[in-house]
């Protein structure tokens, strides 16, 4: 079964490559004719293939559009391919095809940290640079990972946001996902430290768990407001939690009296930002993430950086970036979404 499908896949790829080689030839011919004098840079001509987790996902539509803008501004060719469903090995065939086409760089959000590793290393042997973003592979399979946010950055921006909204004094609570979610607990610990160190008048009275379920999060919010009548603010570092909490708040007599912030997506939060339940919430900007990945790919292709720790490069209007441990580049502080900018985003 697998051998047959693998064989047919190989045949398919071979046929595709042949076809592409033919069309590629004609294209190359016209290119060289048009470019003429630019022979020196022609070797390092930038062609970047974006491979999102799946197509038709508004989040990746936004991030890849950011990447497209940057690639085209750098004079490169941009393309986006990917599976319909986010399955672990669904990206392999697209990686193989892009490698056969000798794309100069791949920008991938990995569906699985290992399943696409061999395909990526194969591509890298052929000279293609590999940048992962949003979701990383194991470090040995890529040249760089563009990390959207650091735990410290996320925790800090949420604490700063809520304390600013409640005037830096009063009771607050946290609505988390599940009690054993590693990343959530790491963020909550950082928030507790930040609160203790920098906001002595703000008291964290409760941490409740909505299990990333609409209904549970909603009911837990109701219980929080009942249990703590003096509550002034809620932080929900989970997209499901903040939307459910906003839904409850928007229909309760605490609307406007209890501040709510956390990590959310514009589509889920649009309603509540517009009706005044939520002032501001945070996440990274996927367009910037895609853009930075494109700049990083360009820097790798042109040989400005090799991806080792300490390398620095400039990413246009996004600023200067430095490669950190594990060949990782951090996008920076989370992005604040509010009534003024939420309509620019559709993910």
């Amino acid at each position, binding site marked *: 079964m697998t051998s047959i499908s693998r064989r047919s896949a190989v045949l398919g790829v071979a046929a595709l490559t042949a076809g592409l080689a033919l069309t590629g030839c004609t294209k190359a011919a016209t290119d060289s004719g048009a470019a003429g004098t630019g022979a020196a840079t022609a070797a390092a001509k930038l062609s970047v293939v974006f491979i999102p987790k*799946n197509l038709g*996902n508004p989040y990746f539509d936004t991030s890849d559009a950011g990447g497209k803008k940057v690639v085209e501004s750098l004079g490169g060719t941009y393309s986006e391919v990917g599976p319909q*469903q*986010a399955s672990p090995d669904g990206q392999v065939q697209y990686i193989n095809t892009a490698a056969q086409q000798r794309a100069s760089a791949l920008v991938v959000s990995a569906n699985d940290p290992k399943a696409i590793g061999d395909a990526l290393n194969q591509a890298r042997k052929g000279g293609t640079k590999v940048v992962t973003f949003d979701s990383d592979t194991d470090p040995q399979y890529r040249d760089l990972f563009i990390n959207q946010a650091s735990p410290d950055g996320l925790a800090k921006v949420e604490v700063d946001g809520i304390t600013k909204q409640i005037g830096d004094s009063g009771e607050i609570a946290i609505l988390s996902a599940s*009690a054993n979610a590693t990343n959530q607990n790491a963020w909550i610990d950082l928030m507790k430290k930040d609160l203790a160190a920098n906001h002595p008048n703000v008291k964290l009275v409760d941490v*409740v*768990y909505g299990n990333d*379920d*609409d*209904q549970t999060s*909603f*009911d837990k919010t*109701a*219980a*929080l*407001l*009942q*249990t703590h*009548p003096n509550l002034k603010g809620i932080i929900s570092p989970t997209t*499901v939690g903040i*939307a*459910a909490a906003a*839904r409850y708040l928007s*229909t*309760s*007599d*605490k609307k406007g009296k209890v501040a709510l912030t956390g990590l959310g997506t514009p*589509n*889920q939060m*649009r*309603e*509540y930002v517009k009706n005044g339940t939520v002032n501001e919430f945070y996440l990274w900007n996927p367009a910037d993430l895609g853009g930075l990945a494109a700049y990083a790919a360009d820097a790798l292709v042109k040989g400005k950086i090799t991806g080792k720790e300490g390398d620095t490069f400039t990413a246009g209007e996004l600023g200067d970036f430095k490669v950190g441990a594990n060949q990782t580049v951090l996008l920076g502080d989370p992005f604040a979404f509010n009534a003024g900018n939420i309509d620019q985003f559709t993910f």
Partner: protein
Amino acid sequence: MTPAPTQEPTVSVPDAQPGIQPAVTSETQLLVEPSSLSPRRRIVQGLLRSREFSILVVLLLVVAAATIKNPSFLLSSSGWRDLLLTPSMLIVLAVGQAAVIITRNVDLSVGSVLGLTAYLTGRLFIDHPGLPIVAVFAAGILVGGLLGLVNGLLVALARVPALVITLGTLYIYRGIVLSWAGSSRINASDLPPDFLSLGTAQVLTIPVLFIVALAVLGAVGYYLYTARSGREFYAIGSDPDAAVLYGLNVRRRVLSAFVLSGALAGLAGVVFAARYGSVSSDAGTGIELQAVAAVVIGGVAIFGGSGTVWGAALGAVLLVTINRALPMLGIPDFWQQALVGALILSAIVLDRVLAARQSRRLVEARDLP
């Protein structure tokens, strides 16, 4: 199987000859001849001794305790609204589940049916803007009823235990939602404001969704209590073989119980969308167990044949209200689930104790000369 103390006709009582035994104790006499009391006393006694009454008392105690601790639990406008609104969806599910359990079956697929119709609700509003809200409610009930029909056909015709069949359809229906919705979700901004405001709208301080739940409860309760076909649900649950021998149309009744449960789960799905305003593919996961728990706490015997939907509805309100009140009383999150479990166990133990006492008394009454 186990005749409840008060509300069941005493079908299994052996021929009693009341007038002949002056020596029997008054309690035993009452057991075999309840009509020796005046009708008014019988109603009052029946009410006081009923399971429903004891659940109501527990419920009132919980509400009182929470209100003493924090007056806004009952006395603020949001508190009063939430007290009635939060259990509305589970009441609808529990009523359907009770009807199925009374026939000695169970419907585990209601959570998946709810998820499917909740997502359907969102999709209908997105794909057909301007669709009247009534049509969406009708669609939810219809699709839920169809899914219930599938359950009913499999259970009634294939003669496989409902536990297994509906466990299967639980996964199948959930699979349909997962492949349909994928990672997408319905957001509040996708739903029309009129529909969303239905989630919290009130008439004379009573939430509309609670009124919907009460209407469902009233209709089903009246049917099961008075209609001949409604009484047959109990007969089937008491002894399915006897019901067949007696000539009851067991298949049709079981089928209609599942259609009812499915349709009500469909209604609950639309209610879910209106209340929570956002629907993902895992909406309603696990709620089937809450529905079964509400029914059991409400005094419906898990092996069918006894109990009422009134009890199931009270069980649903108690379950939801306890969950809301416990954090307020300072019980940590982690202990709340254990307390709900203890509640279910004590309800079942109480069931067994009452049933054993009843049958012992019946035996005593029979053995007397």
